[in-house]
């Protein structure tokens, strides 16, 4: 493919691209930069400080919310990745067309339905069946929502495995279980890791579903941040938000790097 060959080069395209990229990142950078602003009037720069981070760590409610978020994220990640892995492998086997098609549809539906609708639907459902597991309610809702995000890299990875590898394993006396343990699983590991990371981020960052579903006392970090934003933006919010942003960025970049490495 011609790289920026003369006929393909359109003027203004490069500028637009860089401006758009700046547009995408400036708000993120602003939050991070101003979290170090020694001025409680957030948007006027006064000097560098890490005070807000210290204040954030000393905040009990914040700490509790953070722990809740982490507990839910880790559990939801484990469950959703496991379910997604089984589904991905199952889809490669012989399934009746109806089952296969409805599974694919169900897998993409959470990404298509507006989050607010999923939020109120889940909340109503928990209400009517009287589910009252506290943080467990949040965990269930997150698990469901995270499955498609875990599934995508796993599915992408499994598609790259040539079927002849599994035929070779069977030809070499491996039972289906041995074939799975020694060939499928090791080769799928990058996809599984990537899927788990994405599921983790999705759970950690989720707001609207958690807001609707979490009972009082089971607050997560984004819900806490929202309540603070409602009251008025304080610099501690910037500090906490920056931490969340940086965690997400690190995980996404790692996920990319893992997938890029052609370990095969």
């Amino acid at each position, binding site marked *: 493919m011609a790289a920026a060959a003369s006929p393909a080069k359109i003027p203004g395209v490069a500028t637009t691209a860089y401006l758009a990229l700046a547009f995408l990142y400036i708000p993120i950078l602003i939050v991070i930069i101003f979290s170090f602003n020694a001025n409680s009037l957030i948007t006027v720069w006064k000097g560098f400080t890490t005070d807000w981070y210290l204040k954030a760590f000393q905040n009990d409610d914040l700490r509790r919310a953070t722990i809740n978020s982490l507990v839910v994220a880790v559990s939801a990640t484990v469950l959703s990745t496991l379910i997604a892995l089984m589904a991905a492998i199952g889809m490669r086997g012989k399934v009746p067309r109806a089952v296969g098609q409805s599974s694919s549809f169900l897998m993409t539906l959470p990404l298509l339905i507006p989050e607010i609708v999923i939020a109120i639907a889940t909340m109503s459902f928990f209400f009517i069946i009287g589910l009252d597991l506290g943080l467990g309610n949040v965990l269930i809702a997150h698990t469901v929502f995270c499955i498609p995000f875990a599934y995508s890299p796993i599915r992408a990875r499994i598609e790259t495995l040539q079927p002849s*590898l599994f035929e*070779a394993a069977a*030809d*070499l*006396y491996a039972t289906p279980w041995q074939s799975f343990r020694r060939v499928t699983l090791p080769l799928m590991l990058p996809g599984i890791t990537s899927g788990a990371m994405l599921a983790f981020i999705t759970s950690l960052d989720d707001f609207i579903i958690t807001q609707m579903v979490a009972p009082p006392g089971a607050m997560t970090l984004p819900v806490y941040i929202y309540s603070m934003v409602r009251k008025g933006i304080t610099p501690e919010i910037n500090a906490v938000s920056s931490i969340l942003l940086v965690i997400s960025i690190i995980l996404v970049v790692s996920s990319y790097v893992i997938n890029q490495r052609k370990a*095969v």
Partner: protein
Amino acid sequence: MSSGLVIQSVSKTFPSPTGPVRAVDNVSLTIQSNEFFTLLGPSGCGKTTLLRMIAGLDIPTSGSILLDGQDIAPLPAYRRPVNTVFQSYALFPHMTVSDNIAFGMKMQNKPQAEIEKSVRETLALVRLEDKGERKPAQLSGGQQQRVALARALVNHPKILLLDESLSALDYKLRKEMQIELKRLQRETGITFIFVTHDQDEALSMSDRIAVMEKGNVAQIGTPQEIYDDPATRFVADFIGICNFVKAASLGLDGGEVGFRPEDASFTVGHGMGKGHIRHINYRGAVTHYIVELDSGETITLSEDDPQNVAVNDAVNLVIPQERLIRCGT
């Protein structure tokens, strides 16, 4: 210990949008122990499907496959003492060469010391002694092929299956591997069943060949039998070049007669057929002469030594009686 294979009335039917397709149609043949047996045919003839059924990667729709008298057709692949060298090699990318080769023995829970010894010996057999710790991606195509071979051979299978294993190699390497495979078969005494669409390869390597067409076996025989006495027009046409003309064009009785280009020669004076040279195709070791017979048919004649003829010359042809090919359709 070598084994023979008896394929009895094996058929394989696949469903398809246009109706069921008989990939293998009631095939029966017997492969001797310690034999280099080749399944030869154009793509779609069923040779690979047949091979996969022997390996256990597909189940026959009907028929049985007897290995040392036992029907292995209902057994899954991992319970058959049969190993395959795949066309794409199918080496496990996350394992070293040694681990790849050791895989089969490991799955059978052989003792570690025995595995290490066998792996070393097999690496030496395929001359990759110092490549044990490499990963497949670090090897060349030819080396990967030898690893695939070693991975199968180390298990001392009763039958070794090779599915177009040489097709990804370049010409020179391919010729080398053909000799190598032949040597390995003779040394190990394992029955090799080889699938290819390359008739040169089949003729040069095989003890016996089964030529397949559209799911059926057209002919089974030694390379010589297949070449000199093709049973059907398809076999005659598929193996080497074969000229087919009306018998009358050569002054003979019968409907149709065939002959190989190298069996016909120019003669001075009265021959069996007359014609004019339309094209001379110099190929170095051999020269092809495209001759248009007076009957209007075009044939190819080949000679090793240069002939004193030119384009548009009138020529006479002669073919020894015993080299004529007469077959059914």
